[in-house]
């Protein structure tokens, strides 16, 4: 039983435990007994007989109550008092621990700074990447019960616009109406939205076009999402009427504030959409920026106004024009799985019922239908960044693990130094848990400081990362919210347990006798007992983790080089691209072709220009066109098989971009509206549809009844993306597609003899000489655009290199620390060996071998891990196998060089210890 006589201060000093509740009660009982004895004695002294005295004493002690009641009350007071004292002691302990911990850290500033800074790096990197993961992958739409939303259609097809046949990836308006009419048992409401492009609007008296982001939505859109109006009203069923019947728009709160300065009279004012005037009927409530996670919508327009605002886009009630994505709110009790089953069958039924042929109907019966949770809204980038972000998140987690092992190592080294202190405390009766708590408090201080510094680092880094992840559009902003904070706290706690617990347990488990006996030294440390077993596990662990990160870094770097240096099939270094905003000048139809011809001729005459051509979508832009084509003699398995990407191009296109014509001829200037429809196709298209036969002279159909003859086959060109599979592609003469020229887009491709950027000035002048008012949206060398198109891969690689080297450095520091410590502890052994005639070289080898053995263990564990990790990278690697021997060799070589360097310095120091000093110094 602990002696209650010890003073509180003494008890705290020696970390002695307090009484338990049971002890407190026993104390109270003892006291009562002793009181009774004294009373009986005094009563007997006054002449009572012992039985009388006992009865009297008990009566008095009972007072008006029974003795048990009094006792209970004493118990209550006693246990209560003990409880409060324990809490008080705990607070005192925590305060003392903190004070003591800070003192310990200040005593060894190098350890403290290294630990806190490396931890800040680890935690900061994790938080920064998590911020981006949160923004791009996890954040839900700011609407009530977002988890009850369901998305129908490919969530990445936010700007999809497919023609030429029915589709399931994006939906046509009639298909939406079918689903909406038949899904009342699945969803409480089903809304549609489509086209997230730039609008051409004029506001107020200004005559200049502005380009807010617009989205066409069904009348029930806001109600389904649960978004109300801050001013005016949101759309209602009135906006679902016949085409052109509801000239109304709702604008976002952000756009209202940004563009209209929050004007009070906004509701009722007009916006001019290139001729059509629509009235602002409301402002959506603050915080709602639409259904696309990375893109804020400024203006919502009713779907039925699309024919008025973009008349050239054709009929909106055509089943062959697919441009909508659906958002539904699940009816109570309906699960996502059930909604998926029901919508899949509803959609297939509608598609089959409206199919043009039995073959098409058969395809639709098996058409994959995308029905997913709508909690996060649609996103074009989520899918793209998913793999990259997860790679980075795993990478930074590994980095943090290495940081933790490193700090654990440093703590272990300190534990050795503090062993005498620990054994003294244990000898004085301190509990082991108490010592572990003290040591964990020190770890907690490091973790807290590291987390705070890491948050700062993450706040700064997260902004930059999100900016680059969303192409600097700055639309999606990374904010450190509660979720991110919680993540950081969780990471810090995990880290603290990770690096603090093992050393603390070890330090508190010292042999009581050994350190106190240290005066009686031995010359040869007792086998491995004198070294640090945990440290000898941590170093191989660090080596293994570093190898994983280095291997990943090497693979990603080589993959990027492949992508960067691969043959894109065109003359990447000699092309200048110029985007001309012809739509803004209202240039349409024949005037457009005349303009394109004039500009081309002027530029072709400039010195240094080899060839000039133009196209609708341009090179390495987001714009791309798809068509569902019919190829006689080819029966596809799915819609994807019938999908052909195409671009509308000017004369001499293949030569103009520096492509290679394999067979047949290029698009010519005679391929105009009066000539038969022709196209040039790429190799992939020829191989896929014509199975080894030449495609030249073959016919396929963009539209039923209009045959298009293939006049040439060009080699494959990487014209939209340097990664991903090569697509089937056709190049059709712009002049034969007058409907597309209604609101044409024009990108010039100018092939130069020298550096294309040198020509930009004269090209601009040439264009201005044709029409001085033509706005040039972008003038850039193609190589620049190609470079930008892989900025995401580049970002991943740059970060991976950073993580890889940080990991390497930390592993080297860890190895160095363990080797130094080991050498210091073996000083007398080394001295003895040296005295017995060991050469300097032998001693060097002795220590080096020891260090390299640790590294070898690490590599043995790391190689399989690295191969597994590399396999997981899979989809991110282009032209590099996951088992790439070069990457592995590079990673191993870098690691080995570092490891040898890290153990060489302590080894050298050991070999130079004069025997006399070593023997004399002892430990």
């Amino acid at each position, binding site marked *: 039983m602990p002696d209650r006589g010890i003073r509180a201060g003494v008890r705290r000093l020696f970390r002695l435990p307090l009484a338990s509740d049971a002890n407190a009660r026993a104390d109270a009982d003892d006291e009562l007994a002793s009181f009774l004895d004294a009373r009986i004695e005094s009563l007997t002294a006054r002449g009572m007989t012992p039985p009388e005295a006992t009865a009297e004493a008990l009566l008095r002690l009972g007072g008006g109550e029974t003795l048990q009641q009094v006792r209970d009350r*004493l118990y209550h007071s006693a246990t*209560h008092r003990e409880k409060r004292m324990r809490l008080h002691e705990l607070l005192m302990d925590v305060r003392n621990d903190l004070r003591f911990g800070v003192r310990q850290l200040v005593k060894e500033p190098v350890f403290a700074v290294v630990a806190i800074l490396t931890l800040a790096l680890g935690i900061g990197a994790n938080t920064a990447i998590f911020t981006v993961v949160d923004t791009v992958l996890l954040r839900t739409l700011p609407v009530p019960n977002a988890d009850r939303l369901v998305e129908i259609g490919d969530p990445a097809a936010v700007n999809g616009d497919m023609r030429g046949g029915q589709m399931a990836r994006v939906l046509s308006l009639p298909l939406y109406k079918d689903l909406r009419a038949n899904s009342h048992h699945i969803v409480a409401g089903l809304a549609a939205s489509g086209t997230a492009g730039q609008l051409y609007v004029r506001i107020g008296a200004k005559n200049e076009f502005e380009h807010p982001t617009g989205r066409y939505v069904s009348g029930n859109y806001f109600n389904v999402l649960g978004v109300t109006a801050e001013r005016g009203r949101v759309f209602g069923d009135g906006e679902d009427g016949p085409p052109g019947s509801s000239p109304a728009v709702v604008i976002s709160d952000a756009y209202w504030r940004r563009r209209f300065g929050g004007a009070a009279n906004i509701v009722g004012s007009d916006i001019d959409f290139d001729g059509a005037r629509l009235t602002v009927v409301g402002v959506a409530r603050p915080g709602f920026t639409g259904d696309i996670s990375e893109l804020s919508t400024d203006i919502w327009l009713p779907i039925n106004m699309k024919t008025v605002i973009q008349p050239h886009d054709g009929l909106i009630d055509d089943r062959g024009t697919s441009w909508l994505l659906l958002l539904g709110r699940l009816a109570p009790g309906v699960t996502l799985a059930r909604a998926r089953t029901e919508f899949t069958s509803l959609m297939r039924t509608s598609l089959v019922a409206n199919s043009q042929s039995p073959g098409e109907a058969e395809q639709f019966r098996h058409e994959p239908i995308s029905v997913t949770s709508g909690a996060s809204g649609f996103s074009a980038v989520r899918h793209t960044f998913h793999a990259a972000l997860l790679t980075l998140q795993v990478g930074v987690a590994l980095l943090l693990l290495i940081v933790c092992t490193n700090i654990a190592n440093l703590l272990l080294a300190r534990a050795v130094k503090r062993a005498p202190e620990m054994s003294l405390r244990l000898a004085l009766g301190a509990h082991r848990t108490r010592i572990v708590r003290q040591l964990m408090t020190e770890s907690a201080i490091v973790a807290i400081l590291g987390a705070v510094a890491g948050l700062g680092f993450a706040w700064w880094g997260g902004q930059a990362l999100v900016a680059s992840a969303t192409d600097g559009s700055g639309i999606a902003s990374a904010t450190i919210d509660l979720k991110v904070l919680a993540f950081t706290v969780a990471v810090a706690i995990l880290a603290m347990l990770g690096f603090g617990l093992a050393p603390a347990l070890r330090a508190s488990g010292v042999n009581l006798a050994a350190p106190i006996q240290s005066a009686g030294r031995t010359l040869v440390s007792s086998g491995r007992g004198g070294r640090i077993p945990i440290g000898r596990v941590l170093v191989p662990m660090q080596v293994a983790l570093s190898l994983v990160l280095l291997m990943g870094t090497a693979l990603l770097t080589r993959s990027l080089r492949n992508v960067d240096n691969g043959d894109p099939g065109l003359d990447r270094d000699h092309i200048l691209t110029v985007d001309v905003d012809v739509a803004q000048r209202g240039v349409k139809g024949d005037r457009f072709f005349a303009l394109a011809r004039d500009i081309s001729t002027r530029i072709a005459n400039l010195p240094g220009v080899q060839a000039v051509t133009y196209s609708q979508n341009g090179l390495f832009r987001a714009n791309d066109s798809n068509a569902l084509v019919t190829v006689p003699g080819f029966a596809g398995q799915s819609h994807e098989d019938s999908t052909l990407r195409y671009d509308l191009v000017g004369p001499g296109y293949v030569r103009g971009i520096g492509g290679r014509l394999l067979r047949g001829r290029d698009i010519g200037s005679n391929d105009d509206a009066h000539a038969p429809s022709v196209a040039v196709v790429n190799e992939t298209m020829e191989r896929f549809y014509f199975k080894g036969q030449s495609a030249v002279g073959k016919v396929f159909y963009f539209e039923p009844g209009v045959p298009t003859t293939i006049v040439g086959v060009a080699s494959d060109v990487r014209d939209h993306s340097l990664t991903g599979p090569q697509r089937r592609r056709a190049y059709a003469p712009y002049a034969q597609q007058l409907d597309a020229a209604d609101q044409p887009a024009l990108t010039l491709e100018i092939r130069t003899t020298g550096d294309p950027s040198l020509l930009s000035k004269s090209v601009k002048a040439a264009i201005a000489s044709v029409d001085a008012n033509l706005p040039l949206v972008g003038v850039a060398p193609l190589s620049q655009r190609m470079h930008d198109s892989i900025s995401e891969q580049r970002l991943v690689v740059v970060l991976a290199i950073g993580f890889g080297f940080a990991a390497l450095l930390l592993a080297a520091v860890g190895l160095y620390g363990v080797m130094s410590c080991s050498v210091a502890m073996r000083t007398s052994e080394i001295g003895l060996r040296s005295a017995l005639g060991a050469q300097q070289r032998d001693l060097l080898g002795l220590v080096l071998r020891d260090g390299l053995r640790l590294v070898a263990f690490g590599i043995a564990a790391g190689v399989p891990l690295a191969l597994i990790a590399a396999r997981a990278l899979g989809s991110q690697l282009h032209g590099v196998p996951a088992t790439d021997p070069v990457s592995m060799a590079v990673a191993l070589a870098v690691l080995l060089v570092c490891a040898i360097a890290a153990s060489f310095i302590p080894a050298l120091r050991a070999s130079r210890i004069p025997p006399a000093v070593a023997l004399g110094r002892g430990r």
Partner: protein
Amino acid sequence: MAILKGTLDVLVLKTLSWTPMHAFEITTWLEDRSGGRLSVEDAALMQALHRLEERQLLVAEWGITDNGRRARYYKPTPAGRAHLRAETERLTDYVDALTTILSRRTADA
């Protein structure tokens, strides 16, 4: 004479302000010093001691009595001493006032 409600605590503190004592000593001391006029109920005293300890006005430690018995010795904490001073002042004032009123000669006396 029984002790007035609310005054036991301050009497105990006063008793202990001389030297640490155990419970039985306190009763005897109080009875002796009051010339036998005050009698402390044993139950009330024990509870008062524990209550004061709980309020951190007293601390206790085990010791050995003159005749070799184990007993819990109480002594006031600094907070206890402060409490004693404040209470003494308050009670003296009160008793003063009480005496002034009660000892006034009334018209019919």
